[in-house]
């Protein structure tokens, strides 16, 4: 029992509740309190990463119920990494929103914090039904955030997003019900123990449940047949929200990684590595489609939204290799892509503010006021996102390519990733040269000025591309250890023997 595991959930919960009651308080007070919550969250998640780094599992059982009967939170390296990833991204998005984006809606800070709470529950929970609840919490907050700022542009993508996710929730419930009806448990550790023992006649039911779960996680992660909602929704959202949403697809990837290494992993008997044969080709097609979308994008935000889909494809291709090196490389890429893409979303908004009616469209427009700064930031972000040396994207992709073992898969992975990378480079060069170089004479009279908060947060997220390279040694050691821990699910099941408070003395 370790009560500290609740910190990343309770902090945004209390912060969010406070914000709800302060809708009419002075804006500076609301901002300060909101920012304090996010900063505390970063500190808490850094502590959790340090705790998890010793390689043991820590559990917290709500209500002191012995697992598998109650809901447990489980901290391991992967969960700690995801919480830290989210909270760092959230901190900079939050700082950016202080530049004015939070003023369009009184409850922006509350929704933002509740979204973080949902994300952290999803990463920390050790219970399949609780994962569903976490998805709902983060989704309902994201509905609010997506429509935040209003405007008719957002209603239709918002409606599509909401309806699709409600259908996803129904499928999630059906698959959870199917798995429960056979195994009689929804605790992930207990499922890992019970799935290999399922009798042959009930096997198809669990298999169907497992595949339906894959559909749900695929919808969250935006794999190919389920990704058409993403570009419009992300391109329509306000900048800090779109940047925070860079982590939303990663929730689906986290869930796939967790469920299909722990419950349907190598030890699952008949159901070992369920669905992994499907993911590899789908991931590569997703990547290819993302590249095609990026080339055809008509504005910067859409371009970056397609970059999200490219990164989903790359990540899942690496994960479905199923090797320790593949998962480790995927985790490194995950850190890189979430932060850099978040930064690019913020940057696209800064560009749009300075170009008047041309907004972030990839068209000729009058010269921007702060063109030098913005173009350098774009250069760094694009180089990192495309995967050119010397920034983090290059190292992440190199790790992924090196993780493939010789064979047909290696041939497919190498060719799709490398050709895709080249075409993405074309897309970014085209966008950058038109937006920053092909200018007409004169300036826009009324342009948005760069305040310190927006410049700092955009720069910080994009500089992740540099920082990840400098710290590549320690980070890849951590991701290697995470991958090893994930592929050894025996230890996870030991949380079933966690000592409850007041027992054994």
């Amino acid at each position, binding site marked *: 029992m370790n009560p500290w595991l609740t910190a990343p959930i309770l902090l945004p919960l209390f912060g969010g509740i406070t914000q709800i009651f302060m809708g009419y308080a002075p804006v500076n007070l609301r901002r300060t309190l909101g920012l304090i919550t996010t900063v505390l969250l970063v500190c808490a998640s850094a502590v959790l990463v340090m705790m998890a780094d010793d390689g043991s599992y820590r559990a917290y059982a709500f209500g002191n119920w012995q697992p598998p009967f109650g809901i447990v939170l489980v901290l391991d390296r992967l969960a700690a990494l995801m919480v830290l990833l989210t909270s760092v991204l959230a901190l900079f998005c939050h700082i950016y929103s202080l530049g004015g984006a939070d003023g369009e809606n009184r409850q922006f800070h509350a929704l933002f914090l509740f979204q973080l709470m949902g994300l952290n529950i999803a990463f920390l929970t050790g219970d399949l039904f609780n994962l569903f609840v976490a998805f709902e919490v983060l989704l309902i907050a994201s509905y609010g955030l997506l429509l935040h700022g209003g405007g008719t542009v957002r*209603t239709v993508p918002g409606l599509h997003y909401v309806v699709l996710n409600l259908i996803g929730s129904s499928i999630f419930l059906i698959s959870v019900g199917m798995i429960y009806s056979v195994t009689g448990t929804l605790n992930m550790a207990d499922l890992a123990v019970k799935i290999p023992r399922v009798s042959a006649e009930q096997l198809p039911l669990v298999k169907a449940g497992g595949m339906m779960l894959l559909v749900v996680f695929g919808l969250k992660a935006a794999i190919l047949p389920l990704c058409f909602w993403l570009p419009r929704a992300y391109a329509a959202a306000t900048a800090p929200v779109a940047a925070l949403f860079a982590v939303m697809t990663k929730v689906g990837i986290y869930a796939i990684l967790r469920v299909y290494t722990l419950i349907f992993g190598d030890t699952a008997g008949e159901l070992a590595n369920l669905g992994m044969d499907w993911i590899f080709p789908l991931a590569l097609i997703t990547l290819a489609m993302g590249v095609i979308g990026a080339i055809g994008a008509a504005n910067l935000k859409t371009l970056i939204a397609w970059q999200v889909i490219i990164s989903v494809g790359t990540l899942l291709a690496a994960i479905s290799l199923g090797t320790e090196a593949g998962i480790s490389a995927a985790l490194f890429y995950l850190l890189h892509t979430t932060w850099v893409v978040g930064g690019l979303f913020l940057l696209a908004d800064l560009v749009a503010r300075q170009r008047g009616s041309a907004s972030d469209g990839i068209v000729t427009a009058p010269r921007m006021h702060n063109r030098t700064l913005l173009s350098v930031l774009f250069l760094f972000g694009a180089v990192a996102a495309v995967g050119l040396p010397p920034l983090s994207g290059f190292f992440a992709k190199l790790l992924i390519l090196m993780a493939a073992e010789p064979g047909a898969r290696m041939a497919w992975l190498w060719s799709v990733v490398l050709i895709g990378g080249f075409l993405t480079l074309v897309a970014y060069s085209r966008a950058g040269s038109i937006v920053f170089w092909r200018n007409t004479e004169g300036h826009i009279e009324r342009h948005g000025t760069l305040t310190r908060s927006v410049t700092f947060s955009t720069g910080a997220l994009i500089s992740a591309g540099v920082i990840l390279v400098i710290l590549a040694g320690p980070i890849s050691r951590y991701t290697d250890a995470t991958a090893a821990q994930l592929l050894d699910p025996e230890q996870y099941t030991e949380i079933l023997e966690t000592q409850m408070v007041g027992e054994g003395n």
Partner: protein
Amino acid sequence: MEIAFAFVIGALTTSGVYLLLRARTFPVVMGLTLLSYGVNLFLFSTGRLATGQQPIIGSTETYTDPLPQALVLTAIVIGFAMTAFVVVLSLRSLADHDDDHVDGRQAPPGEPVSENRGGQNQ
């Protein structure tokens, strides 16, 4: 009882899916509601159907599984909130576009849809 129960779930899900595929927001919302009814009944049956039994171990010889009931309760609460949200959103879409088509205003033949500005499919 099992057969009747299965048919009810099947009918609800089928009509739900059919309505979801309609092009107007009102049938879509109805479809979502029916689908969630079907799902709730399905979840309820995962603990096996039993009548007249207590969900408490030890008080009687046989007992019924209490966990699906807790799951269904959670799913109902969440589903209710989500339905309320999607109703409000559909009304907003109707007000914004003077049309309850799920893609906003339906484009007259030969003209592009105006809200497609942020989209990629042009």
